[in-house]
């Protein structure tokens, strides 16, 4: 009896354990592209287009369903923001777009998808290096074969850029998630406007003059209303990405590199301009004007200080001082005045020919691919063909039209702005949560963000359509009009499977650490020494190889594009 009991117990444990280890069929479930039918999705099934809707889309007989992964985000928020637009597209276009996001690092998730074979038919927001991995694995569909028949608009809209997406064999695997150039500023110096005007609006042009104005301003506002110490400048990690490219632009560098006419790329640490900008930051630090936590702050830490009126200047993206400044104050302070805000300003070193503060990239930095899970890539290409048109871009960029909260209406082939929404943008009182609810940008797959061709003025970004009328945007554009440049040829990524990508990450991490050391040095001599040490260390760690890689690629582009 005892033996029987032991044997039974043992068998039960082994079987139950092995049952848990049973092999899982790794074949992914077939991705459904057509929710109304369970049969296959041949072009003949879905391609019967019966009606052309008011937006110019040939409505398919059966619903075209496209699932696409779009990187890291909060799934609940995305679902909430997708609802209205999803309903609209289904009702008017018979197209169902399902945006898939996970609150997990995109790189890790993509690798997991590749390893498990569980991924949807479209992936967007990929970097070039991420896309290259999918192409190398044979998981990305060659799109060039469909262009002429199903998506001619892609070619005509992209124009000269089209060929830059072809590989060396002339194959097309990726399309830009965003593309095109909108000549508006993206980064600059920032200064607290009401405090500056209260000082008599002293003029400044060079970094040293900017420093002097900020110093005087800090002297006049040493503490905020809660008695907390204030700083002339602050920042958040990683500073080599957040501050250094714009700061270098004040000395004429292009996104952290000196780019010669022949395409030679030199990293800022190997330039005299790099030393000058480091000395500038060190001076700000030594005078107690730089937040000592600048290299440690997260964006939220920085925003908390910024919103608490503890910072009076900034160097970097234009929108952050809006987001952390008056957009917070106008909600929290009933007595807020319009002048209580930051303005974006040009700062240019005397030695620079031009301040290069905003680098534009016509090709965009993100890519969309159709994966081998797509049963009907032709149908997806048809959607891309519509989405990339000016009308498609309006719908995707501006959100659902013709509802109570819409920002635009579309009737009888004519679009109009909703005046109340336009006014709110012009006045700077627009609530951007409304944009989220309308699904603005939520289904972006191949959108042009430059100026639309049909009217020569509209643009994908709803709030950028009234820059000439919006007082503060107009001021910003005027201040920064000659600080914008086309950097398309010099936006170069190192392929992820190249060992140089590891070197590049090491260099970036070391750069942040060593630049922090140079900036926070106690004396200028020490700062210069630490800068030189940084330069030598980075060069011996492979920075020269990265410069060589970039130069070669830049020169290839100059010759071929």
């Amino acid at each position, binding site marked *: 009896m005892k033996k029987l009991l032991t044997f039974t117990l043992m068998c039960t444990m082994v079987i139950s354990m092995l049952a848990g280890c049973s092999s899982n069929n790794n074949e992914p479930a077939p991705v459904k592209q057509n929710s109304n039918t369970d049969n296959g999705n041949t072009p003949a099934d879905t391609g019967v287009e019966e009606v052309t809707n008011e937006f110019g889309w040939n409505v398919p007989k059966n619903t075209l369903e496209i699932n696409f992964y779009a990187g890291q985000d909060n799934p609940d928020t995305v679902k909430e923001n997708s609802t209205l637009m999803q309903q609209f597209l289904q009702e008017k276009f018979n197209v169902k777009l399902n945006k898939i996001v996970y609150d997990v690092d995109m*790189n890790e998730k993509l*690798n997991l998808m590749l390893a498990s074979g569980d991924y949807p038919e479209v992936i967007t927001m990929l970097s070039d290096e991420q896309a290259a991995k999918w192409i190398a694995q044979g998981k990305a569909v060659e799109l060039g074969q469909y262009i002429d028949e199903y998506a001619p608009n892609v070619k005509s809209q992209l124009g000269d850029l089209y060929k830059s997406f072809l590989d060396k064999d002339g194959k097309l695997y990726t399309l830009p998630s965003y593309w095109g150039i909108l000549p508006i500023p993206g980064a600059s110096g920032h200064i607290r406007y009401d405090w500056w005007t209260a000082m008599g609006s002293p003029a400044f042009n060079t970094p040293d003059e900017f420093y002097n104005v900020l110093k005087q301003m800090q002297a006049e506002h040493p503490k905020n209303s809660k008695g907390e110490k204030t700083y002339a400048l602050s920042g958040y990690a990683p500073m080599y990405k957040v501050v250094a490219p714009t700061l270098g632009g004040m000395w004429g560098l292009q996104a952290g590199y000196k780019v010669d006419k022949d395409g030679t790329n030199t990293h800022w640490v190997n330039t005299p301009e790099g030393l000058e900008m480091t000395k500038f930051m060190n001076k700000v630090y030594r005078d107690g004007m730089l937040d*000592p936590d600048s290299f*440690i702050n997260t964006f939220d830490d920085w925003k908390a200080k910024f919103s608490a009126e503890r910072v009076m200047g900034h160097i970097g993206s234009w929108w952050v001082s809006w987001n952390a400044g008056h957009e917070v104050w106008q909600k929290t302070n009933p007595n807020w005045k319009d002048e209580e805000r930051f303005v974006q300003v040009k700062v240019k070193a005397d030695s620079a020919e031009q301040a290069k503060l905003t680098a534009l990239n016509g090709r965009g930095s993100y890519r969309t691919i159709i994966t081998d899970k797509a049963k009907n890539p032709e149908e997806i290409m048809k959607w891309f063909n519509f989405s990339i048109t000016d009308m498609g871009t309006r719908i995707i960029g501006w959100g659902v039209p013709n509802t109570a909260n819409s920002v635009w209406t579309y009737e009888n082939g004519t679009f109009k702005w909703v005046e109340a929404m336009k006014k709110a943008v012009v006045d700077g009182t627009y609530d951007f949560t409304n944009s989220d609810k309308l699904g603005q940008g939520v289904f972006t797959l191949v959108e042009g963000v430059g100026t639309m061709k049909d009217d020569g003025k509209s643009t994908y970004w709803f709030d950028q359509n009234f820059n000439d009328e919006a007082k503060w945007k107009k001021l910003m554009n005027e201040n920064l009009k000659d600080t914008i440049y086309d950097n398309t040829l010099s936006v170069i990524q190192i392929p*992820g499977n190249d060992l140089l990508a*590891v070197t590049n990450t090491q260099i970036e991490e070391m750069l942040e650490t060593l630049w922090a050391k140079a900036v926070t040095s106690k004396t200028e001599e020490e700062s210069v020494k630490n800068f030189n040490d940084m330069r030598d260390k980075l060069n011996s760690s492979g920075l020269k190889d990265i410069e060589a890689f970039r130069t070669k690629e830049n020169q290839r582009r100059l010759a071929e594009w």
Partner: protein
Amino acid sequence: MDKPVVEHLPLPAGPVSKWARRKKTLYRERNLWFISLPLIAWVIIFNYVPMYGIMMAFVDYVPGKSIISSDWAGLRHFKAFIDSPDFGNVVRNTLVISGLNILVGFPAPIVLALLLNELRKKRFKQVVQTISYLPHFISWVVVASILFTLLGNEGILNDILLRLGIIDQPISYLGEGKYFWGIITASNLWKDVGWSTIIYLSAMAGVDSEVYEAGKVDGLGRMGAMWHITLPGVRPTIVLLWILGIGGILNAGFEQQLLIGNSQTREYYEVIDTYAYKYGIQLGNYSYGAAVGLMKAVIGVFLVFSANRISKKVLDTSIF
């Protein structure tokens, strides 16, 4: 004619007899082996079978392809790690942080356990023990935020020192590398000293009370009893934990480094595990990460065997 009783004949000497003896023992203990089978299967399936993944360190693995069909890389990833500019710092930080943890964190619970063992009021002893265990249950995320509140540029400590006039500028305790090792060691100690006393206290409870009585008769005081009876009584436990601690010397921590460290202290906080995570998992260079991890594991095994051998020779105590 009687049938010869072969099984009762003495077994021949030599290796055959040894094998037969083993078979006999196995048969005698068959019930125990049967019960152990699921666990043995568990260990094989979950601990040994996945080890084929070690292969990843020797190939250029790309997610989506099988390890076997990946291109052979040999020792290239190991070489790349050794040649990397971070190698020296990463190994130094790992050894220093682990060394400090052993140097400070190993004797501290023994001392605390000895002190707790001497407490006579049971209720008080229980309260002190419970309080000392509590930090163990606090996550590193919370510990990191406590540290930022205490030691940040605008933290409590700087505030006090500024108010007392001891300093005129805040000290960036969390932003200067020179403080990092001390902070991480102190945090580890605070978090785990109480928890680590449990095993020593249970070992101390096992020391025969008659030995203490005999010690008293021989004139030993409390300190003497501690030194001559309690400590020798728990020596096997101390040696066991020391050997295991040496084996884990390359486990210098992970989440505490990522949470408390920052770009300004990177030269002092980056350890092998955080490095393997960043360059292996986050960058998607799994082969490189596997090579770094494997190198660490091999050194760890070597250290355990060495510590065990030294302990066997010097203290006549070992774990295998």
